[in-house]
């Protein structure tokens, strides 16, 4: 007998998220000017931050959403980087183009890697991915044309001839190394922004909702019609692709590669895991916050050598125990602020207060 029609709608955005969106666009625009505004050292620091952020977002999607606790992401970093070197050195492909194509090679590797590791559950999956990464490292170390176990350098001519270098040298009077650093940096900036936007989009679609359901309870998700397996495969392949591009980009900037470095579990999985755990797993904001903390720690503690690793491990474990939702989780729970909101809020007639507006029904009789 209700006289007014009730219209239920779904809302995701918040005021904070709208403001943040505008601010984020401004930050990206300003950041794009960095190669003209700050020293090469700082550009390299920013490059490091951006590429690690991309790796962290990928691991977050894998572990925090698809429940795939991989500790073998270095397989895709290393394989992406090596396939880029291979394309440049053996086929003469432009390094920038080769970096993009490296994503496809990493995804190709993910097909057999997933075929084996997806047979394993939970922690065994993690160990399996690590074993696969080690196996790929051993095989790549046999690749004599790319320096075998000792590795090789990116030919100087290839860097000089890279797309955009000539233009920067002529127009802004940069040196080759400076120009290629700037190009790698812009690539990283675009990659980081695109990754964050893409993942945010995925999480806001139906697929993202299904992914969160699988993360929370796979049995229930399957019983409700969610194709859990297909979602996991999709995430695994997508993250392999992006991780492969990132690996290639990192080694494009380094211009020197070796199997031990490119397939390092510490650099490309342990640090990444630390970033995600510290910041907060299962949110887009978490890895961003974690990345900032990680960078500050690295700058201040790197003189301590191996004690640095111990401290990182200690902070990581303490976070897992005392703040399992990470720093962002703590902050967000206190303030209710979400910069990348994905919650679907049910609203009645445009108002958030459904409880007050609705006659209680059902069991409460």
């Amino acid at each position, binding site marked *: 007998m209700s006289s007014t029609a009730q219209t239920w709608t779904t809302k995701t955005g918040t005021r904070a998220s709208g403001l943040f969106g505008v601010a984020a666009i401004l930050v990206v625009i300003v950041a794009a000017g960095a190669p003209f505004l700050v020293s090469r050292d700082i550009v390299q620091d920013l490059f490091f931050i951006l590429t690690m952020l991309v790796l962290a977002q990928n691991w977050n999607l894998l572990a925090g959403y698809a429940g795939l606790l991989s500790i073998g992401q270095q397989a895709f970093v290393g394989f992406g980087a090596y396939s880029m070197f291979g394309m440049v050195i053996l086929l003469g492909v432009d390094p920038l183009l080769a970096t993009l194509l490296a994503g496809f090679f990493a995804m190709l590797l993910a097909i057999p890697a997933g075929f084996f590791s997806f047979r394993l559950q939970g922690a065994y999956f993690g160990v399996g991915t690590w074993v696969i990464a080690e196996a790929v490292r051993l095989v790549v170390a046999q690749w004599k044309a790319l320096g075998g176990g000792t590795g090789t350098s990116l030919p100087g001519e290839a860097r000089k001839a890279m797309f955009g270098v000539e233009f920067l040298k002529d127009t802004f009077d940069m040196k080759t190394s400076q120009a290629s650093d700037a190009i790698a940096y812009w690539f990283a900036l675009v990659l980081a922004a695109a990754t964050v936007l893409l993942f945010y989009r995925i999480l806001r679609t139906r697929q993202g909702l299904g992914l969160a359901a699988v993360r929370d309870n796979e049995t229930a998700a399957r019983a*409700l019609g969610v194709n859990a397996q297909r979602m996991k495969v999709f995430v695994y392949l997508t993250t392999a692709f992006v991780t492969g591009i990132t690996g290639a980009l990192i080694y494009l900037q380094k211009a020197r590669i070796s199997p031990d470095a490119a397939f390092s579990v510490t650099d490309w999985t342990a640090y990444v895991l630390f970033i995600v755990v510290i910041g907060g797993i299962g949110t887009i904001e978490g890895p961003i916050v974690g990345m900032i903390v990680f960078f500050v720690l690295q700058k201040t503690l790197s003189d301590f050598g191996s004690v640095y690793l111990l401290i990182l491990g200690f902070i990581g474990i303490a976070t897992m125990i005392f703040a399992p939702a990470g720093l962002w989780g703590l902050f967000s729970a206190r303030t209710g602020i979400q910069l990348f909101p994905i919650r679907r809020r049910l609203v009645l007639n445009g108002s958030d207060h459904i409880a007050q507006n609705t006659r209680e029904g059902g069991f409460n009789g």
Partner: protein
Amino acid sequence: MTLLQLDGISKSFGALTVADDITFSVSEGEALGIIGPNGAGKSTLFNLITGTIGADKGSIRFLGEDVTRVSPMQRCLSGIGRTFQIPQPFEKLTVFENLLVAGAFGQQRGEREVASECAEILVETGLIAEANKPAGSLSLLQRKRLELARALATKPKLLLLDEIAGGLTEGECAVLVETIRAVHRRGVTVIWIEHVLHALNSVVDHLLVLHFGRVLGLGAPQDMMNSQEVREIYLGMEV
């Protein structure tokens, strides 16, 4: 018309036989109750029907199709909805999002298309005030309601309910019975496992008695309750 047909379904966990040559069928529009002592294999039977566990022997047909080897996901899509005896909410999602998952995936439709339908189910099951709270913060009773609400959101043709009335007060139980009746009237076929017999018998047309994984009897509720065998193994324990 026969909606669900089980033929010689058997399942063992090691030496323990939990389903022993189970054969029965359920017609479209029927409401079937299942009773039996603890550990009789009632929940296991649901897991077999939904595919959460696979049968060792026998076949299951739903809507005339053999679904014995079909995944739980596909069985849901073809119209089998269920609740879990131990609630399995998506804890980090809100109550409303729990239903959105069920609606959007179970019916293969867009989130927006099912949103108001999900909201109405929340009103019907008394969860609307909790809509935007994380499911992990619900009490056990609310979790049970969420199980029912989520199953309804998939728009099932066959609804499997596993002990959703336990722990309710007299009044709450009456409302629950009304809700299930209403769902049944809409044409949904119901199979309901329940220890609260008066609630069960006020809804179902037939009663199936399960004991040690075997079908001990299947018939009108009154006949089953009066059977000597059933009284001994089941009611004897209740009183």
